[in-house]
């Protein structure tokens, strides 16, 4: 019978002789970490609650609208892809305002940023990777909802192949409109997050911007209730109401932040959303809401980049 024996090995320090993928790997690692952070993967269950709720909030309307289309009678008006964005956009903006600071604020509060910036990447790489990570999450969410809806509408039709042939143009439209909405939902909250290390403050500021801009734009660009409804006699010809700001109302209508990407979405889908803000904005040529959208995404994008430039001075 052999005697049991054991040996202790001193592993010592091992040098690394494998591949080094430099800046490309560094960017990818930050992007992956950003996606995981946004979705709460690898974190405790409280971090997963908001992304899970957002997923439900975005996908549920698509499923509901598909079911509604399946049970619709001939002649009923079917829900459209533009309708879907109008329903989920505000929810998406509020949720993104809450989740986006998670990608930037803790790195600065815990000063992990100092460890990132001594590695093979620049401050621009860092901020671009974080932005791309959150854009990927928001884009995936809005596109998943639209794909579910498109699938539902196709299957609900009596002639699915006919439906596909007649409505294939909806696919590039909802993809591009989704990109427009996702970029807006990503850039503004991330830009605000560069001004504070406290996630709650950043989220509160962004939500306040959305919530305050809506009534401000409403007061300045829309008709009051009594003006538009109460003073008109029954059977009288419809009078055009006059907002307090007169002809400038169509410009003040642009101030409502949650509506800004929706105006561009309306242009893409070539649809009238029916909202009073949209009615005012339609008095402009299409280039105006599109240009305003570019300003409100490029501006925060520049702020985002510029705020991180200061880490190398």
């Amino acid at each position: 019978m052999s005697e049991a024996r054991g040996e202790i090995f001193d592993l010592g320090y091992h040098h690394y002789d494998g591949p080094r993928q430099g800046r490309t790997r560094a960017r990818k690692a930050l992007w992956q970490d950003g996606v995981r952070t946004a979705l709460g993967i690898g974190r405790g269950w409280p971090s997963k609650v908001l992304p899970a709720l957002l997923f439900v909030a975005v996908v549920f309307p698509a499923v509901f609208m598909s079911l509604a289309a399946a049970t619709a009678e001939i002649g009923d008006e079917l829900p459209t892809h533009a309708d879907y964005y109008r329903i989920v956009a505000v929810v998406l903006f509020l949720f993104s305002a809450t989740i986006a600071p998670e990608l930037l604020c803790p790195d600065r509060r815990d000063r992990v940023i100092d460890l990132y910036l001594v590695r093979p990447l620049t401050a621009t790489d860092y901020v671009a990777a974080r932005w791309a990570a959150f854009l990927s999450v928001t884009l995936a969410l809005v596109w998943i909802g639209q794909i579910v809806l498109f699938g539902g509408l196709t299957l609900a039709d009596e002639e699915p192949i006919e439906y596909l042939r007649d409505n294939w143009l909806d696919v590039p439209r909802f993809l591009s409109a989704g990109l427009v909405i996702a970029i807006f939902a990503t850039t503004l909250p991330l830009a605000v997050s560069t001004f504070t290390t406290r996630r709650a403050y950043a989220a509160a500021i962004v939500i306040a911007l959305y919530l305050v801009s809506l009534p401000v734009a409403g007061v300045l660009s829309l008709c009051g209730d009594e003006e538009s409804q109460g003073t008109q006699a029954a059977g009288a010809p419809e009078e055009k109401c006059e907002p307090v700001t007169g002809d400038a109302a169509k410009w003040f209508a642009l101030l409502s932040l949650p509506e800004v990407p929706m105006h561009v979405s309306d242009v893409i889908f070539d649809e009238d959303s029916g909202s009073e803000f949209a009615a005012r904005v339609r008095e402009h040529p299409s280039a105006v809401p599109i240009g305003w959208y570019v300003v409100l995404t490029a501006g925060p994008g520049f702020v985002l980049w510029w705020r991180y430039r200061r880490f190398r001075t």
Partner: protein
Amino acid sequence: MFSARASLEYTWHVTAAPLLEAKGLTKRYGNTIALDAVDFQVHAGVTGLLGANGAGKSTAIKLFLGLLTPTEGSAEVMGQKAYESVEVRARLGYMPEHDCLPSAINASEFLAHMAQVSGLPPTQARVRAADALRHVGLHEERYRPLNEFSTGMKQRVKLAQALVHDPVLVLLDEATAGLDPGGREEMLELIRRTSHEAGISVLLSSHLMGDIDRTCDRIIVLDGGHVTEEGAVARFTQETSSIVIEVDAGCEELAAALATRGIEGKVDGSSVVVELTDEALYDEIRDAIVEADVRLRRLAPRRGGLADIFRSSPE
């Protein structure tokens, strides 16, 4: 993609070219001059960057890492400027003085992520994370959240993240800050092992002379943004021409007895220091000790200490 122990670092070891080189390096913050046209080199081994708070140590480290750009001059890492070439940073490790660890994740996950951010593929990054945590003695704790770690353990994680991508050189900024005497000793031992066993060069910034004395081969002394001393630590700790006469009590009496013999003795705590000009002086000292009736504890040539660097530095 390039191989790990690439030709770059071997070239540096073989040619003994400096790992870091400051040439006329100047950094100003408004009217404040943090570094004033300093020139120095850091070679393989353990080099101490010694100086009081505000001497310019952290500024120098940040310039080499590319976190700051020089106002004038250059800070080169293996012949390249880190603020111009990001790739050279893949071969540097950095342990900052301040807290820099996230709280929400465990040590293993954090290190694997930092290895990937240093350019390592995911599978190798996880292996390196385990290796680095084993090296700093935290292998058993690798799945614990970082917010549950003690100060000493956090310092070790900070060192581990600086080593996780197997750098050529690590820059440690006040590595023993906030540690109790036991933790400080362990950290210094870890730094020695990192250099002597792993062969990774170290630049250790500290205001504690004991840390530098016990760890470093070479020293660069910064004072008010200037390099005041530079060289091997042994040079500063070799024997001097003075003799230390350590007695139990009665230093003043001994100094007086020496004075009657025409010998100037400076009282320094429980010792009297005499400048040795002649071997015959030993007989005079013996007689003075007898005359002063003091109990002799030690009579030996005085060795220099790093503290002398600051005593001799011009104001």
